[in-house]
């Protein structure tokens, strides 16, 4: 067991989630150790985004158990869950158009000590410094993605949930993001990536969960990746 090396950060047990009448997740079990980078792979609509939303408490109806560092969260108010040290970067990026770049950066409350200062963030993302007084959605797609990442690095969150961060971005920006994720991993962040771009994910992740029809179809470690490509292609249709 590779994950036993790590202290447990997140454990999901028998998670079911619903949107109105539709049953989206059918008994998800997964766990992520501290400092691990894990991806959720699968086709669109397989339920990967719903898993992330369930973790942060944005799915109205869910059952089962989600613990973060041992704390049960399924009955917590949504705004309390983030304070367990979670940073969420949604698929649509969620940059606020009525806030400036700097206001966007400063919006998420600090949830734990040890986050980056505004100055460190501007050193890491000089574009954001240059455009700090522009309105958030005036930035290019790549800059908006950097902003969406940067603002959760400020909060001291140790568990990052990143939904499709490479979607629709130029290869050079995807490379930059790849280096950023690598650097964050070095620093000990725990990261869950929902990814469409398999090559991006393969280089970074310790383990991959394959999600299919709202359930976990496979769990593949980095070592098994080469021998599992046929299986993966079948699930992802790549």
């Amino acid at each position, binding site marked *: 067991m590779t994950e036993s090396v790590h202290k447990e950060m997140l454990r999901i047990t028998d998670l079911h989630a619903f949107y109105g009448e539709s049953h989206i997740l059918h008994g998800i079990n997964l766990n992520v150790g501290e400092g691990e980078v894990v991806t959720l792979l699968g086709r669109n609509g397989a339920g990967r985004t719903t898993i992330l939303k369930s973790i*942060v*408490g*944005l799915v109205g109806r869910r059952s089962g158990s989600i613990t973060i560092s041992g704390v049960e969260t399924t009955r917590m*108010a*949504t*705004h*309390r*869950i*983030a*304070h367990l040290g979670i940073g*969420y970067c*949604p698929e649509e990026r*969620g940059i*606020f*158009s*009525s*806030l400036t770049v700097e*206001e966007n950066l*400063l*919006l*998420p*409350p600090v*949830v734990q000590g040890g986050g980056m200062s505004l100055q460190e963030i501007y050193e890491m993302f000089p574009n954001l410094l240059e455009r700090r007084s522009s309105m958030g959605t005036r930035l290019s797609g790549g800059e908006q993605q950097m902003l969406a990442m940067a603002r959760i690095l400020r*909060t001291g969150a140790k568990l990052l949930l990143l939904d499709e961060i490479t979607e629709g971005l130029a290869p050079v920006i995807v490379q930059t993001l790849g280096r950023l994720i690598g650097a964050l991993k070095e620093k000990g962040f725990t990261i869950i990536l929902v990814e469409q771009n398999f090559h991006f994910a393969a280089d970074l992740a310790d383990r991959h969960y394959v999600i299919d029809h709202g359930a976990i179809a496979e769990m593949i470690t980095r070592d098994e990746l080469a021998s599992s490509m046929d299986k993966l292609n079948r699930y992802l249709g790549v």
Partner: protein
Amino acid sequence: MEISFQMVMSQVMLGLNNGVFYAILSLGLAVIFGLLNIVNFAHGALYMLGAYVALLGYTSIGPLLGMPDFHLSYWAALIVAPLVVGAFGIVIERTMLRRLYKFDHLYGLLLTFGLALIIQGVFTNFFNVSGDPYEAKPEILSGVVNLGFMMFPKYRLWVIVISLVVCFGTWYVIERTKLGSYLRAGTENPELVKAFGVNVPLMITLTYGYGVALAAFAGVLAAPIYSVSPVMGSEMIITVFAVVVIGGMGSIMGSIVTGLLLGMVEGFTKVVYAPASSTVIFLIMVIVLLVKPAGLFGKES
């Protein structure tokens, strides 16, 4: 009849005096609509409640508490009425409105409309519909000032100044401060703000409380000018909704500027063709709806 500069200016000033009431009330509606997605039809009734807190605080609360000499002063009423009505608003939000956010706008509108009817009905039962005078206007605000082109009542000038301060102060807090950035973000995407760890439900409650406190503040300001009556709110609110429609629902600066301008347009119409002065705002509303349905400052969605 010759229209003189003096006449125009004096009506425009009186119109501005009405305009600040439109501004402060439509501002409250805009703030509430932005975050709660509820068209607060109870706004007029809460404005009326504010005036009654001032009136009853001056005439009745002392004797009621066994202190016949106690009269809530005008200055105290300006603080107390918004607090009392704001607290009442918080109770309404916590116990009723909160249950409606997941449904269509229409339900919030119906609920607050029902509340307005109940509050107004209760007050009509106990108080004089034709109004009671509020006689606690402070000495220092009595009399007139010479504005050069006209003699203007000091009290009305005070109302204009303090209302502008409150309106632009509110605008400043919302558009330029950290607190305001939470409000703006919550208006755009409350779910994500919650996921970041901000207590959005509390923010919503306080926003509603602040919005209705503004209405009560306007009610106290209005008490010495208009007589205090159970129907003062329903008369005012119809015009205010027209202002909101013209300005664009949910725009902060839009609601302030539109309120002020339309008050002045109304005043100006009194000089040009007085019978049209009470309908000119609705005429403008029709034109704006035809040309720019989202309102002058509204964003097309």
